[in-house]
């Protein structure tokens, strides 16, 4: 239920890469997955990101995220698309006389699932091996204004602390007699006020402190800013980009070739 702290601090080739290189791997593997109708292409792209995650020593966390975040949404996709997709015609399995799985819907669901695997695989690869601060610095180098980059990337660090603070407020209010367990819907909604008001007041206070801390570091100064850790493209980044392009091309071609024709997964 809680937001995972995504970054896994380890030393590996992938961790040392420039975040822009990893973002490139993500985009390069997502494009064929989105553009192609073939499940095989999407799965090949997913396996590519898994391979890079294994090199980066984060394959365990990578698979855990895929299993706990992406796989659960497969169930509703499968049920809704399989039963209700308007393109569905051919009946496959009858549940009730008017409720049955249709082949076209299941195919659409499968294509969607394979795509989600590839897209999220690449995203997890980036976030698991990159410090949020480095990610923010690299996005700024790519031209994202600081006023957009700061709120987005600091949220990665702030949201878990807010969750922790909610737990504190819960305990404090329970010690004052607030009932939180085994309550009806109305009481649950009422509990929003005693739980979230302290959280909001704390947030306003914290924003005030943070704005002072930001200004102390010249946040709204117009002068071009320097970075504590200067990000640089190295030879390994270049090697990585070239090998990504080559393997994406090779895998896409291979997967397209072994896809039977006519493509049974096209819509």
């Amino acid at each position, binding site marked *: *239920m809680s*937001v*995972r702290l*995504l970054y896994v601090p380890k030393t590996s080739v992938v961790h040392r890469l420039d975040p822009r290189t990893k973002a490139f791997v993500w985009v390069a593997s997502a494009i064929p997955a989105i553009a192609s109708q073939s499940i095989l292409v999407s799965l090949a792209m997913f396996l590519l990101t898994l391979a890079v995650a294994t090199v980066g020593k984060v394959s365990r966390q990578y698979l855990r995220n895929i299993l706990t*975040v*992406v796989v659960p*949404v497969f169930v*509703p996709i499968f049920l*809704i*698309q399989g039963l*209700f*997709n*308007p393109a569905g015609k051919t009946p496959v399995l009858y549940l009730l006389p008017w409720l049955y799985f249709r082949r076209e819907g299941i195919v659409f669901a499968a294509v969607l699932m394979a795509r*989600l695997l590839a*897209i*999220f695989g690449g*995203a997890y690869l980036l*976030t698991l091996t990159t410090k949020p601060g480095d990610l923010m610095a690299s996005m700024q180098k790519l031209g994202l204004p600081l*006023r957009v980059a*700061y*709120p*987005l990337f*600091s*949220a*990665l660090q*702030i*949201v878990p*602390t*807010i*969750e922790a603070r*909610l737990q504190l407020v819960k305990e404090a209010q329970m010690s004052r007699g607030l009932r939180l367990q085994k309550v009806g*819907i109305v009481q*649950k*909604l009422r*509990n*929003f*006020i005693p*739980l*979230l*008001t302290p*959280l*909001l*007041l704390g*947030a*306003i206070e*914290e*924003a*005030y402190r*943070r*704005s002072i801390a*930001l*200004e102390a570091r010249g*946040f*709204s100064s117009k002068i071009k800013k320097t970075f504590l850790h200067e990000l640089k493209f190295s030879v390994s980044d270049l090697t990585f980009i070239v090998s990504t392009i080559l393997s994406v091309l090779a895998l896409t071609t291979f997967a397209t070739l072994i896809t039977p024709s006519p493509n049974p997964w096209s819509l």
Partner: protein
Amino acid sequence: MSETKPSRMKIEFSTFGIAMIPLMIGINIVSSYLAASTPVWADTLGSMLAGIIIGPINGLVVGLLTNVFKWVTFDPFALPYAIVNAAVGLIAGACALMGAVKRETSASQVGKILAVGVVLAVVATLTSTPLNVTLYGGSTGKPWVDAIFAGFMAGGWQVFPASMAAEFISDIADKIITFFIAWLIYTKVPAQFVKTVKR
């Protein structure tokens, strides 16, 4: 600071306003946790509060970035719905700017809050139905809403009107309750805090 009133953008994108954004994203996220197993989502509470306390553009940014954040961390489906959350933050802020959200607790004020809740429900329905229909064939992902949707479909309705009606029924409950909670929380914020923000 000069005597003239600072411009809207100056307030909303002050360093303080920017620093509030990630915190309000956090409020959006924890309030949707608290709403688990109730019929409401309450995932726009932080956007509404940001809209009320700071301003419409800030509410919009909070809504937008909340869903981007959810998308990269735990909810693969959240990204398209950023538009919905952003629109709710924007309109809640605009209504507050027009004076519909005051810190007094009178009957007429409660009426105004309920009216804004209805407006927000309409906004949310108009923005989310096209997404539900094009992305997920009209289903919303909340079981009881999908049951209503399936009921309308079984009654011979087309996908779009059926999805829109189901979405509106759920949104009218969600947005009125959530906005009411947001207003109650807002009335409890000491005046000193709000002055700090609007300075």
